[in-house]
């Protein structure tokens, strides 16, 4: 069994695997715990790869993604999570944002 974490053609995303998180709560937590520099690095790299990732992932049924494809899927969701931090706030958190513990996702995915 190979230890391959991502589909072979997306091996360049391996340094960002800690962004492969299954739930919104985790993705928001990672965004808020990261520096803007780290977010920007992930954003820059992932933005350039996300269209290729979608083309790859759309070949699978959404509910039966193989583990390495699922990680790629979760990386793509994390890009959506951090996009506003880069494009709108230039800050990890929402400027004048709300305590995320009191603005909680329910039935978290």
């Amino acid at each position, binding site marked *: 069994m190979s230890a391959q974490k991502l589909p072979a053609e997306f091996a360049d995303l391996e340094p960002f695997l800690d962004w492969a998180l299954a739930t919104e709560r985790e993705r928001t937590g990672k965004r808020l715990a990261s520096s803007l520099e780290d977010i920007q690095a992930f954003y820059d790299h992932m933005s350039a790869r996300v269209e290729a990732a979608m083309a790859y*992932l759309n070949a699978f049924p*959404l509910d039966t993604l193989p583990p390495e494809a699922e990680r790629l899927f979760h990386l*793509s969701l994390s890009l*959506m999570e951090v*996009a506003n931090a880069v494009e709108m706030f230039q800050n990890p958190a929402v400027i004048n944002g709300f305590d995320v513990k009191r*603005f909680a996702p329910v*039935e978290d995915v």
Partner: protein
Amino acid sequence: MRTVIADKRWAEKYPEIGTGPVAAEPLISQEHFELEREKIFRRTWLNIGRVEEIPNPGDYIAKDLTMCRASVLIIRGRDGEVRGFHNVCSHRGNKLVWDEKGTCKGTLTCGFHAWAYNTKGELTWVPDEDNFFDLPKCDLGLTPIHTEVFEGFIFIHLAERPPESLREYLGGVADQLEGGGFGELALAKRYRVDEHANWKIALDAQNELYHLPFQHRRTIPEFCVLKDGQFTRLLDVRLFNHHSVYSSDPPEDRVGPATEKLAARFSVAETESRLPRIGSFDFYTIFPNMALLLFRGVSHDFYMSYNFWPQAVDRTDWDIKIYFRPAENAGQRVGQEYFTCLLRDLLQEDATAHEQIHIGLASRAKKELYFQDEEMQIRYFHTVLDRFYAEA
């Protein structure tokens, strides 16, 4: 070039609503909160959820309505019917169901002494029944609550005899939304916001677009952007008996950030959903505490609902639900995630402001509030509140 639209159109359309300042006191006073408890929340139809939350016989949702001092149980019977009951055991008054959502195999059993009820609310089992004295078991079912469904939205009415049916209560809103295909969309995200603000402050702050270019200058700077010295104008405002809707169209030349453009490409779907929209964005206030938001999405229409549940005069449980057509592939799901993250971050800006407004008004520094014509629907909401406060 934008068409220049006349000012003060809505006051002209609805002159009876008036144009004067509105009292601030009802937004912060305990006295009005108690009036709302007795004269509004116990006398109007309240939205509890949607039928998709209880798809199968035996599925139920339970909700504590702090404002009504009641706990409500909505259950789908084995016959498929949706029924509402007080979530209270007939034996000693214990709360029957303690979780907010669940399913049963035809029987709900009280945790205190195991009195059991079927999905029609009938009492079916009492342990050690022979040791009771003339127990009128047939009369000891769960106490029913008037429950009606409109387009999949489940509403309850706590009065013994509601003065009108749900359909009558919704009136013009129902005319507009009937046959809307809401059931084709599914809950994609839900947020519960624990706000330290009055429920009406939260609702009022959502019930207009005047604030968009200012409060949301970072998130959606191109929405309702001011150009050529002209402020944007709503497409339509309609006032119904108790309720209202305002509609708008976004600027045609809006570009949006890079990831939004990507997300729009991912989101392309084969199947379209079309809701009965008036503009690109419609905001219904369904009195007293519900809002329904219809959007023209990038691939298909989608909608959101808000339920503002008062917990105390200065505390609100803002329940936000976002409904999309279920994603058929990863691209659509990722595209939806972009838009839900955008809405969430933007609503965070609002939630923060709701609390600051409450602090401001609670100081009683300001006795009256001035609404402009584009805030007509808020003025109307307060007119409806006044009507209910004044009831016997």
